[in-house]
């Protein structure tokens, strides 16, 4: 499997992401934001975490206009798979590749810790190796992870099976981590080829790191 990981000024999870996918057996290329094309044989584009362009103005707002994002738009429109993690999720929202927007966490604090997530839908590439209602433990590290969509937007997400992950406690009871509408931690687009989540599965890929629950997530993208 060939993975292209994007890199903007301020990205800081590109090497963790590369390490994680390589450990699982993928060929990974890091792509600088000024590039205009994504390699022909790319199976998955990952927009990793960090603080693109310092997160000035709003998280992801400036990265959305980077040169490489034009290629990502085309890649996604042609059915290519795209995964946005944390800042990558914020960029996908700003780019309109996923619906909704991010606000500051309702505590106004940066939240950095392991947190449990419940799988809501697994009829997609990303979460196919996990069961519905399965609980995984994945680190979160964000200041602007308070997902917002209006009532109509939420209903559309529910009706189309686009809600992928919700914050929960270890027993799977939904939990308000950051104020997100309906405790949403991750979603996909209607066509189910663009995925975004605030937690960092690439930081949970070996038990040495405290947990390897991220493996099954990232493996979803492998055949």
């Amino acid at each position: 499997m060939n993975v292209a990981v994007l890199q903007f000024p301020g990205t800081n999870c590109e090497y963790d992401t590369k390490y994680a996918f390589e450990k699982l057996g993928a060929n990974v290329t890091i792509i600088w934001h000024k590039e205009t094309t994504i390699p022909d044989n790319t199976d998955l584009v990952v927009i990793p975490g960090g603080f693109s362009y310092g997160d000035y103005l709003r998280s992801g707002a400036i990265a959305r206009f980077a040169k490489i994002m034009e290629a990502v738009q085309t890649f996604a429109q042609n059915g290519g798979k795209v995964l946005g993690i944390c800042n990558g999720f914020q960029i996908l929202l700003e780019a309109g590749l996923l619906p909704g927007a991010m606000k500051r966490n309702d505590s106004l604090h940066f939240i950095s810790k392991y947190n449990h997530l419940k799988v809501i839908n697994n009829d997609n590439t990303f979460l196919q190796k996990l069961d519905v209602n399965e609980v995984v433990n994945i680190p979160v590290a964000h200041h602007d992870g308070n997902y917002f969509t209006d009532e109509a937007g939420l209903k559309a997400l529910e009706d189309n099976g686009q809600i992928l992950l919700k914050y929960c406690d270890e027993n799977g009871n939904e939990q308000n981590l950051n104020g997100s509408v309906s405790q949403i931690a991750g979603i996909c687009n209607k066509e189910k080829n663009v995925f975004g989540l605030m937690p960092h599965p690439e930081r949970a890929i070996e038990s040495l790191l405290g947990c390897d629950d991220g493996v099954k997530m990232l493996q979803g993208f492998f055949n």
Partner: protein
Amino acid sequence: MKAIVNVALKQGVLDDQGKATHHALDTLGFKEVVKDVRIGKQIILELNATSQTQAREEVTNMCEKLLANTVIEDYTIEIIG
């Protein structure tokens, strides 16, 4: 010519910064005088535009594209000069 753009969360979208600040003002003794607090940001643009109409059009375009996230934010534009 100058444009002053004010961007704030839409009414109906919970403004956590505003809420926290309101709470702080309450505890400082302003409970009776403050009904609500909303926090936004101000963006000041120096423009080369030649007319107010052109300036407003250009700045509106900037707001729609970049300066505001219209999913959650409203903006106002004031043109000076």
